[in-house]
């Protein structure tokens, strides 16, 4: 039974000490910058939502180490099958903030053509699979992508992210089982932020840890301090390397905390103890990494502050740029249902285009969840 956390920077609870990964100072700072940019993007997203400029947002506050440490362990040719709470992994892959905010504004610049709610990204050129809302489905996709990689024999790996809530989904079971049976080059990362909207993970499952669930699929499971970017990087690197060597999948539990609300529609004070929020505020993964960087002589406070300021500026600029873009064209509604528009859809399109603009229905502005 796995209850201890693997850590580099040290945990407050029982911990298993890992050696710091052999990275250059430069590389440590790249990790740091990515975490800060993730935080700043989320802050911007929440602000845009609070100002009524976008309809909805899902922040990943507190999960920056889990996102960046893991994404950094992949090659660019590896695939990511994400859930909605890893914006940092897209940034890490080189997606520009404006591309992400175009999605949040649902404008014509959005790769998904404004068809999905905010934060449901798709970045084909970065091997970053389209995000859906249904919990858990991406896990089975990841197993399938990895099965295909194995069939093709091209040496790539697919990494998928899921929440603690998602461990209860059908596709968690089926994805891990298929991944195990077909020994697919897949890494399953559960970011256990301890909440699925209002449900604490203790009500989600009675297993001692999420990592323990790996036993059911005959694969290794590790429980890692998810707020320790270096531990996350090390553990993920091991899993990715093993998958690439043909040893099959690993389940990694990154133990963390959702520092913000579930989404811009959520109010955690209804269900989450204030004390817990305070306890975890003290474990903020960015602050923790910054202390480590300074303690290890990799940076000083001023340099780190400059990173924050630059990221802040970057996100602000991106938002300005996105906001000016127009909505997608009305008849884009009928594209991409199929590769080609069949007669029936063409008829519906013709009817729509024949209507006056006054036909648009009145809508509520805000998403209530």
């Amino acid at each position, binding site marked *: 039974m796995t209850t201890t956390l693997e850590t580099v920077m040290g945990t407050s609870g029982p911990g298993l000490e890992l050696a710091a990964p052999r990275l250059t100072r430069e590389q440590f700072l790249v990790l740091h910058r990515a975490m800060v940019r993730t935080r700043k993007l989320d802050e911007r997203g929440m602000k845009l939502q609070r100002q009524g400029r976008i309809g909805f947002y899902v922040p990943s506050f507190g999960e920056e180490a889990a996102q960046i440490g893991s994404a950094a362990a992949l090659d660019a040719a590896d695939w990511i099958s994400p859930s909605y709470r890893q914006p940092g992994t897209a940034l890490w892959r080189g997606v520009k903030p404006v591309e992400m905010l175009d999605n949040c504004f649902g404008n014509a610049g959005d790769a998904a053509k404004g068809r999905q709610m905010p934060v449901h990204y798709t970045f084909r050129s970065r091997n970053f699979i389209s995000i859906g809302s249904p919990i858990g489905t991406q896990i089975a996709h990841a197993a399938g992508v990895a099965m295909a990689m194995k069939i093709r024999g091209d040496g790539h790996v697919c990494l998928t992210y899921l929440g603690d809530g998602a461990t209860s989904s*059908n596709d968690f079971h089926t994805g891990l089982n298929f991944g195990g049976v077909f020994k697919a080059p897949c890494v399953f990362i559960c970011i256990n932020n301890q909440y699925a909207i*209002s*449900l604490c993970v203790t009500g989600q499952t009675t297993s001692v840890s999420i990592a323990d669930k790996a036993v059911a699929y005959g694969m290794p499971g590790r429980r890692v301090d998810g707020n320790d970017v270096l531990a996350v990087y090390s553990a993920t690197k091991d899993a990715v390397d093993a998958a690439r060597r043909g040893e099959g999948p690993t389940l990694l539990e990154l133990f963390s905390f959702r520092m913000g609300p579930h989404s811009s529609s959520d109010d955690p004070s209804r269900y989450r103890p204030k004390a817990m929020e305070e306890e975890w505020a003290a474990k903020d993964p960015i602050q923790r990494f910054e202390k480590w960087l300074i303690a290890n002589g990799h940076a000083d406070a001023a340099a780190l502050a400059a990173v924050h300021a630059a990221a802040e500026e970057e996100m602000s600029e991106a938002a300005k740029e996105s906001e000016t873009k127009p909505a997608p064209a009305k008849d884009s*509604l009928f594209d991409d249902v199929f590769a080609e528009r069949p007669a029936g859809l063409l008829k519906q399109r013709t009817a729509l285009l024949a209507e006056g603009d006054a036909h648009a229905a009145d809508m509520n502005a805000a998403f209530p969840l």
Partner: protein
Amino acid sequence: MSATNGTTNMTLLQALNLALHEEMERSKDVVVLGEDVGRNGGVFRTTDGLFAKFGAERVMDTPLAESGIIGTAVGMAMYGLKPVAEIQFSDFIFPAFDQIVSEMAKMRYRSGGEFTCPVVVRTPAGGGIRGGHYHSQSPEAYFCHTPGLQVVYPATPEDAKGLLKSAIRGADPVIFFEPKRIYRTVKGDVPNDPDFTVPIGKARVARAGKDVTIVSWGAMVHTSLEAAEKAARNGVDIEVIDLRTLVPLDEECILTSVRKTGRVVIASEATRTCGFASEISAIIAEEAIDCLEAPIVRVTGYDTPFPYTLEHVYMPGPARVLDAVQRVRAF
């Protein structure tokens, strides 16, 4: 909320919440389960106050698995409880589809009546809240096509309360769709009588008229009524039928109206192909074609996934309904 003359004016959401409170008080066999329905009171707050009043054993915050919510509800119902399961958005009912279609719907039949599973599955449906693909769909037709399920879809606070109470007291499984876009915007007078119920299987003439019949359900009833009011200003007298229950269907109510008006429009938010609007059309084309003076016109969602930015373009508003009325009148 203020009690006057045996009714209280309230929102549709409040009416649902009240029905749950009353039925849980009435019978301790009634239990509620679903994601975030307990401590959080539901993401829409429909189950607000139940957890505090009835406790964790009767108001269960479940793990994130719709198949488990329905699968265990089926077991509880077979054992004799009356589970009221919430599926947070009807878009997320599909992981439970096997339990609903293969088990819940068929249990009475396949066991020769020995086992029944009268689960009530409450689930918010429909667009209009800027929820995109996965928080906007209208999946009622899937369930109407599944023998053994009752399918209920109220449009007013009174019906919401009365139908939910009937569903909870009933002997059969019910998929109870809640028109979430009008949860808080539609208010109405709701009888205070804790034994007030609305029978499942009876439609309602929401507005009497003689020129054209509009058949609709859920939030589209209000869109249809709005269209009817506009048409009235041009001297066109529309009858609006609010189905309230899709299965079992009140065919007579529809056919009576169609026989009177000879012209019919069916208005639904759902995807067009194989939607429930098509069923209504087919019934009329089979039973009353001789009374028709025009084509049967469906106003529906498009055969595309539900969009985000263009939601207002996708959803049929009163103007689109009026175009259809125009079309059946012009014929």
